[in-house]
């Protein structure tokens, strides 16, 4: 392995290490800065505002272990992801958090928040009523008002005013992060993408766990090298993955070991997280509100029109995918409600699909058989 390849690998190892050792990173950050950390449960949380308050926002994700502590707290008909997130709190794995917050999204994940509020010792918690009717012109002004209340609450908790300058700086840092991620994703459109889907997932996931300034520095380093990356790895079949929350790196790795590369995704751990920037839409809070209202929606907010379907088809075309894996966390109602329409639209656009239902532990062996069959079918298409 040449020096270049070793360096590339080391760069991506940074992202992986941040994801795997998120607690160590957070504790060190706290010691270094002397500041607070807030855990958030859904990517609708306005990170810019939290960051402007001098607080580090980090996403609460699960551990992919069999659930063994949440049964008394969340009824088993709700998604395994929300139970896995709560399990982390009950097991004390986020003991470095000073507070938690959620921006209203699906019914499932908010149960992790409300159970955490009651059963995990925490200094601060905030439920932000993020509007659902994001296709209405009424949503941005409403959310801007809610952000005023959230801002006041954060100020009271920290005892410090959130200045305009701090908001501007936080917006700039977060926008920069999104732009850098977007630039990396642009490179995946090429015939021979310089990074794998697994590397992309590590990159986006870690951005939800570390200080965006640290992440930006790492992304800049990666970008400078990626265009020159000497990739001898064959791309194989170009795939897209879409659906519910997905941080299952092991699954991505398995698929990519079968002669395929994920070139794009529609996940809240991927494009849905960073696709849109904060742009000027009036005053500062209105601009932030507008970004969250107009971002690529979670299905729970995508109504009355299904705008996400159009967006997914556009991605599939731009990234030239041959097939799509439609995955869904078991019992994830919002995605279950979109999947028939989405699958039909993909098929109509000539993109074949494979549907897989995920639990916190994924049966890699069984899924591998199905993925191999799917890839074989797609490769047959290439032959004839």
């Amino acid at each position, binding site marked *: 392995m040449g020096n270049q390849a070793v360096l590339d690998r080391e760069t991506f190892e940074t992202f992986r290490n941040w994801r795997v050792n998120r607690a160590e990173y957070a504790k060190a950050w706290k010691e270094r800065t002397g500041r607070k950390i807030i855990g958030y449960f859904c990517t609708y949380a306005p990170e810019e505002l939290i960051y402007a308050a001098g607080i580090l926002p980090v996403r609460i994700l699960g551990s992919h272990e069999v659930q063994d502590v949440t049964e008394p707290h969340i009824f088993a008909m709700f998604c395994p992801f929300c139970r896995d997130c709560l399990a982390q709190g009950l097991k004390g794995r986020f003991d470095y958090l000073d507070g938690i917050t959620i921006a209203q999204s699906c019914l499932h994940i908010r149960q992790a928040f409300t159970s955490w*509020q009651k059963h995990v010792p925490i200094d601060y918690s905030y439920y932000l009523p993020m509007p659902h009717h994001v296709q209405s012109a*009424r949503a941005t002004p409403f959310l801007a008002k809610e952000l005023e209340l959230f801002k006041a609450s954060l100020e009271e908790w920290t005892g410090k005013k959130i200045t305009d300058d701090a908001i501007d700086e936080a917006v700039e840092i977060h926008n920069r992060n999104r732009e850098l991620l977007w630039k990396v994703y642009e490179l995946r459109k090429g015939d021979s993408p310089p990074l794998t889907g697994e590397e992309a997932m590590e990159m986006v996931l870690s951005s939800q766990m570390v200080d965006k300034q640290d992440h930006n520095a790492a992304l800049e380093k990666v970008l400078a090298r990626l265009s020159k990356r000497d990739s001898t790895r064959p791309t194989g079949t170009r795939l897209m993955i879409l659906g519910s929350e997905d941080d299952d790196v092991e699954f991505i790795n398995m698929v990519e070991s079968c002669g395929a590369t994920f070139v794009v995704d529609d996940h809240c751990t991927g494009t849905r997280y960073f696709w849109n920037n904060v742009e000027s839409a009036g005053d500062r809070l209105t601009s932030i509100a507008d970004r969250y209202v107009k971002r690529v929606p979670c299905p729970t907010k995508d109504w009355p029109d299904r705008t996400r379907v159009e967006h997914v088809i556009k991605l599939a075309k731009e990234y030239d995918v041959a097939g799509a894996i439609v995955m869904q966390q078991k019992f994830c109602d919002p995605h279950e409600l979109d999947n028939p*329409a989405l699958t039909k639209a993909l098929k109509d656009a000539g993109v074949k699909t494979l549907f897989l239902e995920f639990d916190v532990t994924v049966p890699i062996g069984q899924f591998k058989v199905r993925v191999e069959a799917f890839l074989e079918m797609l490769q047959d298409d290439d032959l004839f």
Partner: protein
Amino acid sequence: MATKAKYKTAPLKCWKKVKELRLKYYEDYAKAHERGGLRWVGGAWTFSAIPSGLGEDVYSLTSEPYGASIAADKQMSLRCLEASEKAGYARDLCAYMRNYWGSILINEYAFGGTFPKPDFIWQDHICCSHAKWYQVVSDLEGGLPNFCVDVAVGPYEEVAPHKVDYIVEQMQDGIEWMEKVTGRRYNDDLLIEAVKNEFRSTSLWAEICAMNKQVPAPLEEKTMYSLYVLGTLNKHDRSTADFFEELRDEVKERVDQGIAAIPNEQCRLMSDTQPPWGFLSIFRYMEEFGAISVGSLYTFGLIGIWEDKPDGSWGPRTTPMDQGIEITSREQALQLYADWTLAKPEWQHFYSPHIKTKMMARIAKEWKLDGIMLHYNRGCEGLSIGIAENRLGLIEAGYPVMSFEGNMGDEREFDETRVRARFDAFMETLGVAKVGRA
């Protein structure tokens, strides 16, 4: 086993009338076009008074009660559920929704004939399934005008002007939209009349439920399901408000005369979430123990609107009319309507199960309960959200709790024998022996 009755009992005099009103509702919807009228569909919680401004010949089909009606017919329900699954919709989705979609897919109306296609959709959204339900209805019907009002602005204890305004602005947009899609001119007088009817009917229902604090209870929950249903169909209609007034008077008479719902009441319980509609016989089984479900947060608060009374008890919310407020404009009517509806007890737990636990503990105390039965309802994520925390909270508050798993609208997920066995064990725990039905 039969025993001597402890209390006198009597059938409800208005029973026949409620059945007639319910059937008329479903017939009116089906025949609306024959009369030159309009048909709209939406949830039981939608702001149903608003389409009333389009005229006096506008009829609705509310989704959840319709799904429940199908569920009560096990054969039709199975065909509907299977049709939805065949169309690609997951089996763990809302059971009402799957029954409803199935009714469109097999093109059968539960009240006879083919499924009557609506003219437009008027929905509200607090549960993940609400707006999405009608996205699919629109798909299945080949495209329908669809408007939905987001009401998820936070619990009523945190209500603020901008939250009410967000809802009112959407309502105003919705009215303009309705005028466009129907080509009709909107009549504010009809809106104001309908809003007033809804204030009356939802406050009256709470007043009726509050009378069940009496021992013996004048009503039992299985009967209450057949009564409150009008509030889920036509809560804005004068016929519902007038019926609830008549019912309130009759229940008051039962309280005054000591007429009980069941003759051997010895154990007072409440349930939670929707019942398994195909298995309401479990309520009759409870009577063998002299056990009565006097209601639930679901039955009381799905449509009933409540407030704290000066003596600290929970009672019907005082209507704006009773506060001497004269409603004279569309804006005022909508402001009052949004604020009134945001207080709905069954909307509060969407933000926190801990709010619901407090309300349930309050009911347990004021309605003098011996125990609580929680239906872990696989058919409804909206009302089952937080239910496990409710169980923990109620146990912590000192109440015996029994839980059972089931599904309100999918009989394949309800095990009647097992639920009866669990109920036997619960009664044994409470020290309640079978007394037989008098």
